[in-house]
C-alpha cells in the first residue's frame, strides 16, 4: 500500500510541477492546487498506514492501544486542506484580477516588474 501511495505522490508532484512550469497562468494555479494534494497525501503516508486499527480507547482501558492508527496526520491534513482551500480561492481571484489589469494570462508576458 505504501508503495502504491508513494508512486501516486510522485506522479502528483510531477504533474503539479509540470503545470507550474506552463505559461498559462490558470495552469499554474491548477499546479498549486495539485501540489497541495500531493503534500497532503505525503503527510498521510509518512504518518504511517495502519489498516483496521481505529484509534478508539477500548472499554476499561485508560489509554489508546499501541497498535491503533495515529489520528494526528489526518488532523494535520484537515488543517492543510482548509488553508489550501482559502489560499486557492484567493489565488483564483488574484489571477482573474491580474488578467483584467494586464490583459494577458501568459506568465511570459508578466515581465514588466522583473529585475533586468
Amino acid at each position: 500500500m505504501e508503495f502504491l501511495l508513494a508512486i501516486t505522490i510522485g506522479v502528483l508532484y510531477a504533474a503539479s510541477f509540470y503545470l507550474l512550469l506552463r505559461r498559462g497562468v490558470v495552469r499554474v494555479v491548477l499546479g498549486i492546487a495539485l501540489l497541495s494534494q500531493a503534500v497532503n497525501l505525503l503527510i498521510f503516508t509518512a504518518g504511517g498506514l495502519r489498516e483496521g486499527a481505529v484509534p478508539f480507547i477500548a472499554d476499561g482501558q485508560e489509554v489508546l492501544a499501541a497498535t491503533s492508527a495515529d489520528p494526528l496526520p489526518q488532523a494535520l491534513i484537515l488543517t492543510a486542506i482548509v488553508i489550501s482551500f482559502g489560499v486557492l480561492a484567493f489565488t483564483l481571484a488574484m489571477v482573474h484580477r491580474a488578467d483584467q489589469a494586464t490583459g494577458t494570462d501568459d506568465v511570459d508576458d508578466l515581465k514588466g516588474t522583473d529585475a533586468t
Partner: protein
Amino acid sequence: MNAVTLALLTPLVTAVLCLLFLRSLPLQRSFGVAGMVVLLGVSLRLMAEVGGGHIEVVRFGNWPAPFGIVLVADLLAAIMVLVSAIIGLAVAVYSLADVDARRERLGYYAFLHFMMFGVCGAFLTGDIFNMFVWFEVMLISSFVLMCLGGEKPQMEGAVKYVVLNLISSSFFLAACGILYGQTGTLNMADLAVTAREMRPELLTMTAMLFLVAFGLKAAIFPLFFWLPASYHTPPVAVSAVFAGLLTKVGVYALMRVFTLIFTSDVLLTHGLLLGLAGFTMVTGVLGAMVQFDFRRLLSFHIVSQIGYMVLGLALFTPLAIAGTVFYLFHHIVVKANLFLVSGITRRYGGSFDLKKLGGFYAAAPLVALLFFIPAMSLGGIPPLSGFFAKFAIVKAGLAGDTIFGGWATVLAAVALAVGLLTLFSMTKIWAEVFWKPAPEGHAPHRGNVPRAERWLLLGPVAALAALTLAIGFFPQFFFDFAARSAEQLMHPEIYINAVLGGTT
C-alpha cells in the same frame, strides 16, 4: 494575562475592530495606530519578562508539552516581536499619509494587523506545524496587502510573489509531515530531542526541505528572484513593512530549526548555508549595482543583507549567532527606514527613478540627513548600527574557532567586499538623488506634500533614524541582549528544559 498571549491578541483584536468599522476611515486609522502602540507596549513588557534569560512558556488548555501546542518566548522571539512592533508602529503612522483612501477603505489597516498577527505568531510558537499555520496567516495577509489596489505592476508582481511563496509553503508542510512521520512529535523542543534518533540521511533530507522552504521566504540564493520582482510594486508603506519584516521571519525560522533541531551534521547543513550565504551576499549586491529604481535597488540589498545573517547562522559560534541577532534588529530598522525615505523622495520629486530625481540636498536637507543615517548604517560606516553588526559577523568569521577553517575566512573577506559594494550603491543613491542638480522639470518640492502629511511621513523616519543612532552609540547595551540570546540558541537544552520541564 501574560504578555505572550497579549502579543498575539492585540493585533487580532485590532484587525477585527478595523474590519468592524470598515466604513469609518477616522476610526480605522485610529485603531490602526493605537493597535500598534499597544503592541509596542506589550512587546516591551514581554522583553522585560524574558530579558533576564527566563524563557516564558504558555501551554494552551494547560495540556503538558509535547502534547498540547505551546507558545515559547525566548530572548530571540521577544527581540523579534519588539522590533516588529517598532516597525509596525512606524509604518502605521507613515501609512496615514502614504496609503490612499481607496486602499484604506478596502481594509488596509485590518490586513496590516492580520499580518502582524501572523508575524508575531511565527516568532512565538513552539510547535513546527503551528508555525506553518502562522506563516500562512502572515502570507495570506501579505498577499492581500500586495494586491490591494489592483494596479497593473502590482498584479504582475503579486502573481510571482504568491505562486513562489505557496510553493515554499508546500515544501514546509511536506517537511513537517515527514518529520512527524519519523519522530511522532511536532513540538520543536521535543523534536530537538527525538530528531537525534532519526536516521541521519532522513534527518538531513528533512533539513534540506526546511532549507528550501525557509530559504525561499528569506530570499536566499538561488531562491530570491520573486523579491526584486515584487517588492517595489505596492505602496511604499507596504513595501517597507515587507522589506523590514517578512524575509526576516524566514531568517528567524532558519535560525530556529538550524540551532535547535538540525545540529547533528553541522558540517553538511551549515556548510551548505555558508556557501549559500556567500552567493546571496554577492548576487544581491551585484544585482543592486545596475538598478536605477530606488525601491528595486533597495530590494536587491535586502537579498544581499540576508546573506550576512545566514552567514552568521552558518558559522555557528556564539559570537556569530550573536552577530546575526544583532544584524537582524539593526537590519529590520534600517531597511524599513530606507524604503520609507524612498517614499518621501517620490512624494517630493514625483518619481522612484534615480535618474529623474535630484537636487534634494539643497531642496530638503532634512530628508537628506534622514537618508544619510540609515544608508551609511547599511554600508557599515562606524559609529552606526550596521558597522557593529558587520563587525561581529566578520570577527566571528576570522576568529578561527569555526568548524569550516579557511572557508570561514574566505566568507569573512567576501562579507567585507560586499560591504564595500553596498556602500557604493548607497553613495550612488546619494549622488543621484541628493547631490546631482535636479533634472529639467523634475525639481523636488516640499510643497507637493501638505504640511500635516509631511510630518506623518518624516516623523517615523526620524524616529527609526534615531533608533539607528542609538544602536550605534550604545552598541554594548544592544549587543548584550544579542549575546544572551545567542547563549540560549547555542545551548538548546535551555529551551528544551523550559518547554518540556525536565521531563526528558
